[in-house]
């Protein structure tokens, strides 16, 4: 290290002890160094002593200025200088309004939409079902009935429009299953149903005095109800009962399993099953179950527990008259057959015998046909068919109602759009400046540096 460069620091006492010792050792050996140090010391003292120390002025003015510039609370500063801070507050307020007002308006309109939807009766499908039910049920339906039916939706295709079933909680006479006396077959008029002394919903319970006490001939005991009050001599109507249900469930696959289980538990089976799971939309499934007719109503009650019943319909076709008629004709034909058999026994001539045999064959064919028909009707009446359509709930669509904007909304929207445009423009400018920074930053820095050099000179 150059010893000469440290001489000034030595004079000023700014050297480390080690370096100071080195310098002193060198000075002891070199007269020229001692002379240099002495000259530096003299010059340093001269400068310190000779430089003029100007008399300070302006302390009072400075203290006064300090008092004026004393930091005050924000509120006091705003009051003292509103123009300085007013624009900042205005900008903040504008930003707050720009953010909050659209949100509030959106929330308000959403609330209105929800109220409007609640006030209405639901989707168009619901209304169509309600209209259908009104048309089917007729003017005799009470408003409560129509309201109940409107709660359903998504009616199944090929929905039977003959009659709609009423809920289990409703008491009294049911119009749904009531068959007008004028339309009822003569053989079935006056039949009633009572299971274990309890009325079954949806089926009219008639006065027992109107019920004929004689059972039709040829009727099977299996078609008589088990109730002790009506079992004797009273033939149950032979009804081919069917039903259709549209049920909204949380999960279609689980509900399918439940329906299968229910069918087995009731002594029936699932005859048909169709499942659709589209890529977009909700999965749905249709099952056709067959259950014994005696278990028809308990099955319906169990089905209602699967989920939200959107629509339901039951249909009953009374084939009692048809069966009775068939059996009567069968009885007549059997009597005719017996007559032919007796004639055959007493016939003596061959042509007579051939003629009787032909007649006997024809009668027997007719008897077999009638027996087959009767058997078919009995089988149909023995098992009821219930169609179940399972579906999952679909998300509600928000209905945005056009709202006529007020002058304030229009002005606000215009101002918001202009502010948004300004923001976009500023963002574009900022992005351009950022991207082009390698070009303009060196130029600006160079110009600033040149200007600074010029000022310093």
């Amino acid at each position: 290290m150059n010893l000469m460069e440290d001489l000034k620091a030595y004079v000023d006492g700014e050297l480390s002890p080690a370096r100071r010792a080195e310098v002193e050792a060198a000075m002891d050996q070199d007269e020229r160094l001692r002379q240099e140090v002495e000259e530096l010391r003299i010059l340093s003292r001269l400068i310190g002593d000779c430089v003029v120390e100007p008399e300070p002025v302006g302390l009072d003015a400075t203290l006064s200025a300090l008092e004026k510039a004393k930091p005050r609370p924000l509120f006091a500063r705003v009051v003292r200088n509103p123009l300085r801070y007013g624009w900042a507050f205005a900008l903040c307020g504008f930003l707050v309004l720009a953010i909050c007002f659209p949100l509030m308006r959106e929330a308000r309109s959403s609330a209105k939409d929800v109220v409007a939807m609640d006030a209405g009766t639901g989707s168009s499908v619901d209304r169509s079902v309600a209209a259908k039910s009104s048309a089917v049920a007729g003017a005799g339906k009470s408003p409560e009935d129509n309201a109940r039916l409107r709660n359903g939706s998504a009616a199944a295709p090929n929905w039977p429009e003959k009659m709609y079933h009423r809920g289990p909680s409703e008491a009294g006479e049911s119009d749904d299953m009531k068959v007008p006396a004028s339309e009822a077959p003569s053989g079935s008029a006056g039949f009633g149903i009572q299971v274990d002394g309890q009325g079954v919903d949806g089926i009219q319970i008639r006065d027992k005095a109107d019920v004929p006490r004689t059972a039709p001939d040829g009727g099977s005991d299996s078609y008589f109800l088990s109730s002790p009050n009506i079992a004797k001599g009273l033939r149950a109507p032979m009804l081919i009962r069917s039903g259709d249900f549209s049920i909204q469930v949380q999960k279609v696959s689980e509900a399918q399993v439940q329906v299968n289980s229910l069918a087995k538990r009731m002594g029936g089976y699932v005859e048909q099953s169709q499942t659709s799971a589209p890529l977009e939309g909700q999965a749905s499934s249709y099952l056709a179950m067959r259950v014994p007719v005696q278990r028809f109503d308990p099955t319906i009650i169990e089905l209602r527990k699967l989920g939200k019943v959107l629509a339901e319909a039951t249909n009953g076709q009374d084939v009692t008259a048809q069966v009775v008629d068939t059996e009567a004709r069968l009885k007549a034909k059997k009597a005719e057959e017996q007559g032919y058999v007796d004639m055959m026994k007493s016939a003596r001539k061959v042509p007579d015998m051939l003629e009787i045999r032909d007649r006997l064959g024809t009668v027997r064919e007719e008897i077999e046909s009638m027996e087959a028909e009767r058997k078919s009707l009995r089988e149909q009446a023995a098992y009821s068919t219930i169609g179940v359509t399972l579906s999952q709930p679909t998300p509600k669509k928000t209905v945005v109602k056009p709202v006529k904007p007020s002058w304030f909304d229009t002005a606000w929207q215009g101002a918001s759009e202009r502010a948004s445009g300004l923001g976009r423009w500023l963002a574009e400018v900022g992005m351009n400046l950022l991207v082009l920074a390698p070009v303009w930053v060196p130029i600006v820095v160079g110009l600033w540096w040149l200007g600074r050099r010029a000022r310093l000179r």
Partner: protein
Amino acid sequence: MSRGLDIGEIARQHYALVYRFCARRVGVDAAQDAAQETFITAQRVLKKFRGDSSLRTWLLGIAHNECRRLCRTRKLDAPCVDLKEASDGAPFEQMIVDRQALSEALNKLSPEHREVVLLHEVEGLSYDEAAEILGVPAGTVKSRLHHAFLNLRKSLQEYSGGVR
């Protein structure tokens, strides 16, 4: 650290120091403004003063920046360094150095060299304090001071044949 410090009291204690510091850099005419701005700035940033350096150094640092700003905005040139008149019975060294020569030698120094000479020799600041005010390492101050004195002696020798 800044708790309990009253800017009014600080101003009363250090105003003379700051005023003289400013006067040597921007001239007497602008010194009052520079000193006032120094204390107003100090009042504004007093909460940030952590006591890492002495209050005097901190104030002179602010004053240094204010002087530079004032020179830039008002386009001021660095004032000449004025020396006191020699009095009767002056010391020997004052007799052998022509004051006019010394004044010219000081004014011929570059701004950087003159700055360190004023800070150390006139204001009496150490190398570290001068380095903090100027924002340069202490080694730079030492080097600048060495070269400043070389130039001073050279100028004086040229003017009057040397101190010797």
